[in-house]
Each structure stands twice: as C-alpha cells, then as structure tokens.
C-alpha cells in the first residue's frame, strides 16, 4: 500500500438486525448482531477491521451505544475509534470519516455501527419521547409551553413550510401513501398494509398538520456498514463512495426571517461535484424523512424535481415506483423503519446491490443518500454507485 495515493473507497458490507416495534434487546445486543452480520456479508474476519465508528441517538436511554463497543464487541488493535454524533447526519458523517481515514492511510477497513432501542416496555414511542427532554434550559422552557416530544416542533416547521410555499395537506398525503406503496415490497418495513388517501385522512391528528401517519416509526434495531479501501473486501457487492457533501447553515431564531428553510443544497452540490455527476445522473434518492413534510422540503431544497414544483412532482408519481426519481424506496422512515440516518443508507445499499426484491428499482446504478439533523440544522449528502 502506498501512502498518498488515494484508494477507491467502497461500501463492502452490510448487516441489519430485525427492525422491531417490540421492546427487548439492548443497543449493545443489537449492535453485536449487526456487526457480525456485516462481517459475514463482507466475507472477512473481525481482525480485518482496523477502524470502528459507533453512533446512537442522544435520545431517551442512558445505555446508548458508545466507544466501549470496541471492547464489548470483541474488536482489537484498532487504528481509528470514534463515536460520531451529528444527529440525523451521523451515518453519512461516519462514511465520510471512514473515507478520509482510508484515503489518508489512517485505516483500511472501517466498520460503522449504529444502534438504538428507544422503545421500552410499558410505553408507546410517543409517550417515551413526550417524557424525555428534561426541565432545564431552552428545552425546559419549550416543554413548559407544551412542546412534548418532537412532533410539535416539526408541526410548526410544517405549518410554516405550507404557508410559505402554498403546498397543502394533499401533498403530505401523497408522500405518505407513496412511502406506504414502497413499503409493501420491503420485508423489513414495519408497516405493510395498503394505504389510500382515505386511510391517510382518517389517521388521527397529532399536532396539525401532522397526523400519526405523517410521523416516523421508531424501532429498536441496528445497522452496520463496512467501508473499505481494500478491493478484496466484499468484492462481490462493492458500492463506490463517489461523493460526500455537508452543510451546517447555523441559523438563528430571529424575527423577520426563516430559521428552518434554505439549507442543504450546498451539501448535494458538493457531493455531485466530487462525483462528477449532475442531478440527472441520480437513479434514486433516499432521504431522511422523520416527518412527511421533510421529504417535500428536501426534494425542493435539494433541487431534485427539475423544473416541476415539488407538489406537482410528488402528486404526479415522481417519487413512486416507475417515477422520475424513485425516493425512499423501502418506505422510508414513515412506513419502513426509523433508525435515524441508517434508514436511507441501508436502503440505498440494498437497491444498488439489486437486492430490493419486489421493490427493486430496475437498473439502479446511482443513489443520493441524504441526512438531516436537529431542526433541519445539519445536512449531509452521499452519492453511491454500483461498481461497473
């Protein structure tokens, strides 16, 4: 190996646990299973891993996965070990960290593991999130004003977005029913019953305009991804990391302006520049969609609907099966499963490997993977390509 010569960095292994709506295993147990599964998928021994990146939500339980996983998970002799945390942009940040380490020779084969288990016995997900957040600081004041859980915050964003763009709840409905249509073909999706417009409008309102079906489905689960510069690792199914971009617009909450909108396009532009591609080269998009409105907003802000307004694009089937830009093809976080930034990354890997079964996008060779964090404060974009 020659230092200073950039090596082709590829995603060479994928391991996933069951995505479970039932409480049970701890984040550590889930991470162990995903890691072992990824090693088997890549066809390598654990000692071939010389870098380990771990991620977990800040979320709701004290035993979140951390760097102790290196010892707990049986790793040894690592040259890279970090806990990456940038909220919903974490998984793309992990791939980027791995890429930089590999390109500079700091590591050769890096495992990225994300595990979460927000669902605990005796409580629904909504209740668990409503009770978390504490009584201190800004969050304490917001909670004392009735902002319980994350839905009302995104409901405020959604109301503002609908107000400024002229979009309406029929657009939210189109996103939700399209995600469900995709989920029907995904055995890993947690909701796989057909959904029509009527079913959407019958869904109970949580915080208007967001109904229960506009919200992601948190699961207990883990995903591990192996990133390697060694062409012999996972050679049967390597996906080249073509470009990664980040954007952290750092906005402030002030009167007379927007604090949620207008970010992220730069992350996509940077990733495309690095890849030498244009938006027309993208065969699919896997976007972070914790709430239906975010899919609309990101399609718009990332410039992914061409000359069409996002409402027309989505209502016209542009993101569905057979559409111009199949999006969130496993049902996304709405109908598939919410495992933070691993949801869109795992789906892109499955699709580009041609392993999508009933939901496979024909001839898909490139994918844009998106991640957002916080209150749309952080954006990350990754472009993957199936090796020719």
């Amino acid at each position: 190996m020659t230092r200073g010569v950039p090596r082709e960095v590829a995603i060479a292994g994928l391991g996933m646990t069951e995505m479970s709506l039932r409480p049970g295993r701890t984040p550590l147990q889930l991470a162990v299973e995903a890691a072992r599964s990824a090693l088997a998928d890549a066809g390598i021994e654990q000692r071939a891993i010389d870098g380990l990146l771990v991620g977990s939500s800040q979320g709701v339980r004290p035993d979140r996965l951390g760097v102790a996983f290196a010892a707990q998970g049986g790793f040894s002799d690592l040259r890279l070990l970090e806990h990456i945390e940038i909220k919903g942009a974490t998984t793309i940040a992990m791939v980027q960290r791995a890429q930089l380490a590999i390109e500079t020779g700091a590591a050769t084969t890096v495992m990225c593991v994300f595990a979460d288990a927000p669902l605990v016995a005796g409580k629904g997900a909504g209740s668990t999130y409503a009770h978390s957040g504490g009584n201190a600081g800004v969050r304490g004041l917001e909670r004392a004003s009735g902002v319980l859980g994350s839905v009302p915050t995104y409901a405020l964003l959604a109301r503002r977005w609908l107000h400024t763009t002229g979009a309406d709840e029929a657009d939210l409905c189109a996103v939700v029913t399209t995600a469900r249509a995709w989920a029907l073909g995904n055995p890993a999706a947690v909701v796989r019953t057909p959904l029509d417009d009527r079913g959407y409008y019958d869904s109970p309102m949580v915080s208007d305009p967001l109904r229960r079906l506009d919200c992601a489905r948190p699961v207990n689960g883990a995903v591990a991804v192996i990133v390697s510069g060694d062409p012999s690792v996972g050679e049967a199914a390597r996906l080249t990391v073509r470009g990664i971009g980040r954007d952290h617009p750092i906005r402030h909450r002030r009167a007379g302006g927007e604090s949620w909108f207008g970010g992220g396009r730069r992350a996509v532009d940077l990733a495309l520049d690095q890849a030498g591609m244009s938006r027309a080269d993208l065969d699919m998009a896997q976007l972070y969609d914790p709430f239906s409105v975010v899919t609309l907003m990101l399609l718009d802000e990332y410039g992914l609907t061409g000359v069409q307004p996002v409402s027309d694009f989505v209502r016209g089937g542009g993101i569905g099966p057979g559409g111009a830009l199949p999006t969130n093809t496993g049902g996304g976080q709405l109908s598939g499963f919410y495992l933070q930034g691993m949801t869109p990354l795992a789906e892109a890997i499955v699709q580009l490997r041609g392993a999508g079964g009933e939901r496979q996008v024909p001839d898909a060779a490139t994918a844009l993977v998106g991640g957002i964090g916080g209150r749309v404060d952080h954006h990350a974009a990754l472009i993957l390509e199936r090796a020719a």
Partner: protein
Amino acid sequence: MTTALDLDWLLNPSLAPDVADDTLAPLYTAASYGQLALPFCADCATPADLDQRVCDICGSARTLWRTVQLTGTVHSVTVMHRREPGLVRTGAPYPILDVELTSGHRLIMTSRESADTAFRIGDPVAIRFRSLGGVAIPAAIPAPPASSPANESTAHSISEECP
C-alpha cells in the same frame, strides 16, 4: 408554592422549569414580575438565541438581558391534539405558537387561556404569563386593539453576564 388555585390550565406542575442556576434564570426572574427579558449582544445589540453566548455578527461574548415589549406576531402555529397522560391537564387540543417578538427574538409559547386556539400565521399577539408550578412562563393572547403604554420597552439592564 403550588396551590390548588395556582394550577396551570395546560400542564402538570412537574413540567415547571428548573429556575435556580438555569441558563434562562434572567427570563424567569423578569417573568415573575410580569416582564419579558431576553438576551442581546451587549456590543452590537443583535437579538441572541436564548442559549447563545457569542454574537455571530460582531463576535462579542458579552450578553445583556433586558426587558422588551410584550408584543409580536405569529411565525408559525400548531394545535397539539396528542395529550400525554400525566403531563397534560387540559381535555382539549391546545395551541403552540412560535412568535416573532417586536424585540427581534423568536419564542415558543402556548396561549394564556385555554380558549385561545384560533391563532394564525401573521396574527399580532401580546405576551402575558401563565403560572406553572409557581414559575411564570410567557404565553400569548390575541393582541388587544390598541397597544398599552405599560408594555413599552424599558432600557435598563436587569442582569449582565460577562466572561
């Protein structure tokens, strides 16, 4: 401090904010006197986020909390239908507003009265206070037709924080 007469219409007192040593202590202190205090850059007067410590415009690390006018307009609003048992007391959906204050800040709040649910984006509002577990919390009411002189800004500092 909390008595039966002191119960908030919306929330269980267990959600009362920590006040002692909290980063928002100047806000709670002013609120207990019926005033709204918010942070500004002490050097260029830019409105600061509630937890901002360095000004993004001029780089100053000096923050000045001062009382501001009790008026604003609705930046966004939602009506919360999900009412978490044990935390939410009201039996009906309740509003959550993101208010653009005349001072230049934005502040999340609910309404002063449970009956006020008809807020829309762009509506003028006035700021009053709820009492939650003995802590005064900013809350909105539909703006009265004419502004009251009592609501005018006062320029004096009520607390100053220097590094």
